[in-house]
């Protein structure tokens, strides 16, 4: 029986004009948004994580905060970290290594063009290995900096293009002037997909200190731990140590100790907000779509009044008429849902490819069959629920009056 009604409904849908299908836009947009969001899924997360340069290794980073903590880490800090802090942290149990990092801003000149950017200090010896490991950087041209390199720099990947702000690409062997001193470019790093690391200048610590003159001030301390399982405990120890050293109470810290987990949590919170917003838009779109279906079904009840009368004359019960319109309305919703799933997957698929080619990452689109199934059922339900009132209206038509119309 249901199959027969569905057959009739399909025939009715086929003869409908474009107008009916335009009312499906709401449902289409809603389902598209949800499906695209889920399909993009980890692609989007990968993109955000690499954009902010969040390291995947188990490293704790410590930086001073303060009232004016905008800009690169350490800049505008009222009470900066000092070299002694680094040494004190290194002595803590569970800490294998604590490395000072300085990240001042500077002026870079190349072929009569000037840009301002961030310079990162690279330490010597074992610390260098750790920093390279933590930053996960590799040269795409030339090499990375070595101990005893003097007057040499390595540049982020954007210097190969105009993205760094220079109209001429910089090549290995070129000379650039940084804060009025000349440096030789010995390498360009691989693309990281991050606005920080792709625009940065790497410089050995001695060169940078001489250039920026920050003395024993430290912008950031990277802490390598002995046992990954103890990361939370070490984090608490560092916080306790620094509270004592800086003489602040718990809850009033003017510094920040963060773990990759915490940073990922922040990213997930931001993504969660974005997702909630998109779901809200999807919800509004679907409500609008449902109202569109109510409208188009009501119109078609009026248009097909005579047909309803004829069907009643040849023996259709009220319930027969009701189900026919009810199912037709459900199928109308389903058409919107199918189109939405189609567009959602396309957007998710190409979106992921786009992210991958931009970042060089390898996130794969996530096609969630359960979600697709639920979307199909959901769009049918939305359509049929929207169709209840019009279908009741159709069922209640008086046969004689309907025939006369």
């Amino acid at each position: 029986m249901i199959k027969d009604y569905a057959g009739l409904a399909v025939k009715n849908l086929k003869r409908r004009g474009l107008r009916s299908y335009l009312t499906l836009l709401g449902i289409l947009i809603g389902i598209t948004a949800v499906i695209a969001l889920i399909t993009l899924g980890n692609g989007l997360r990968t993109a955000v994580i690499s954009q902010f340069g969040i390291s995947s290794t188990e490293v704790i980073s410590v930086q001073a905060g303060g009232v004016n903590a905008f800009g690169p880490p350490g800049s505008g800090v009222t009470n900066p970290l000092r070299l002694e802090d680094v040494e004190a942290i290194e002595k803590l149990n569970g800490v294998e290594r604590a490395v000072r990092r300085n990240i001042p801003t500077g002026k870079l000149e190349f072929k009569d063009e000037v840009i301002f950017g961030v310079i990162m200090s690279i330490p010597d010896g074992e610390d260098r290995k750790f920093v390279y490991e933590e930053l996960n950087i590799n040269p795409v041209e030339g090499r990375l900096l070595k101990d005893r390199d003097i007057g040499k720099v390595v540049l982020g990947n954007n210097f190969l293009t105009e993205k760094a702000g220079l109209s001429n690409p910089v090549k290995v062997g070129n000379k650039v002037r940084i804060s009025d001193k000349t440096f030789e470019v010995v390498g360009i790093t691989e693309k990281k997909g991050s606005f920080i690391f792709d625009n940065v200048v790497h410089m050995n610590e001695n060169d940078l200190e001489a250039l920026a003159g920050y003395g024993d001030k430290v912008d950031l301390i990277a802490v390598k731990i002995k046992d990954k399982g103890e990361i939370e405990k070490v984090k608490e120890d560092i916080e306790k140590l620094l509270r004592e050293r800086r003489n602040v109470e718990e809850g009033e810290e003017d510094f920040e100790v963060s773990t990759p987990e915490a940073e990922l949590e922040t990213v997930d919170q931001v993504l969660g907000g974005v997702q909630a917003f998109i779901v809200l838009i999807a919800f509004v779109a679907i409500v609008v779509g449902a109202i569109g279906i109510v409208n188009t079904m009501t119109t078609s009840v009026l248009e097909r009044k005579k047909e309803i009368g004829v069907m009643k004359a040849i023996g259709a019960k009220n319930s027969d008429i009701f189900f026919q319109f009810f199912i037709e309305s459900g199928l109308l919703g389903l058409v919107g849902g199918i189109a939405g799933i189609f567009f959602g997957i396309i957007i998710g698929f190409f979106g992921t490819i786009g992210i991958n080619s931009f970042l060089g990452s390898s996130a794969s689109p996530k096609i969630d069959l359960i979600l697709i199934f639920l979307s199909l059922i959901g769009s049918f339900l939305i359509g049929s629920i929207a169709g209840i009132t019009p279908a009741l209206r159709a069922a209640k038509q008086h046969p004689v009056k309907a025939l006369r119309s």
Partner: protein
Amino acid sequence: MAKGKREVIRLEGVKKYYFMGENIVKAVDGVDMVINHGDFVAIMGPSGSGKSTTMNLVGSLDLPTDGEIYLDGHNIARLSESSLAQIRGKKIGFIFQSFNLIPNLTAKENIMLPMLFQGLRIDERELKAEKLLELVELTDRKNHYPNQLSGGQQQRVAIARALANDPDVILADEPTGNLDTKTGEKVMNFLEEFNRKGKTIIMVTHDPELAKEHAKIVYWMKDGKIEKTTKTKKAR
């Protein structure tokens, strides 16, 4: 006269009034009528005489304001809408002046539709529809849509549809009203043929010639009442 014949329809003091504000329109005003199995009845009258309303009441499309209507011995004057629909679908076949086929269904699907409402299985419906198409000589047009058929062909599909559930009674409301004389004649010949095969036919028309030529009994209606009843030469 009617002795020995099975009674199919009986109307007793049937009234249908419409209340339009202050005015009461007495569309049907006390009609008594007995129609036997195998009759070919014409209800004649000018427009506004109440003939169509009478037919709607007989066809259980509408309920009377007063009076009793017996269909096959069952009083249908007080039935619920869905019981009426069920009886209507089983016992009565409708033929309309403007054919009233469902536009997005093929000829065959239109014929199958009443059987769907009676809950027949698809294979039974298909089989029956094929037979009926043969009967009205439209087998070659079974997959055509109404707008691909001529008026006469559409009316023949409508006749086949009316016969789908093997009803006792066929109600035809001006069945030739939208057809030219020749195709109208063909449609009437089909109706007569089904009458000979035992179907009771009630035809509403305003054309006295048509009534006299094809029907056996003619009820002449005026102002909601039956003015006179005549028997034609066909009644013998």
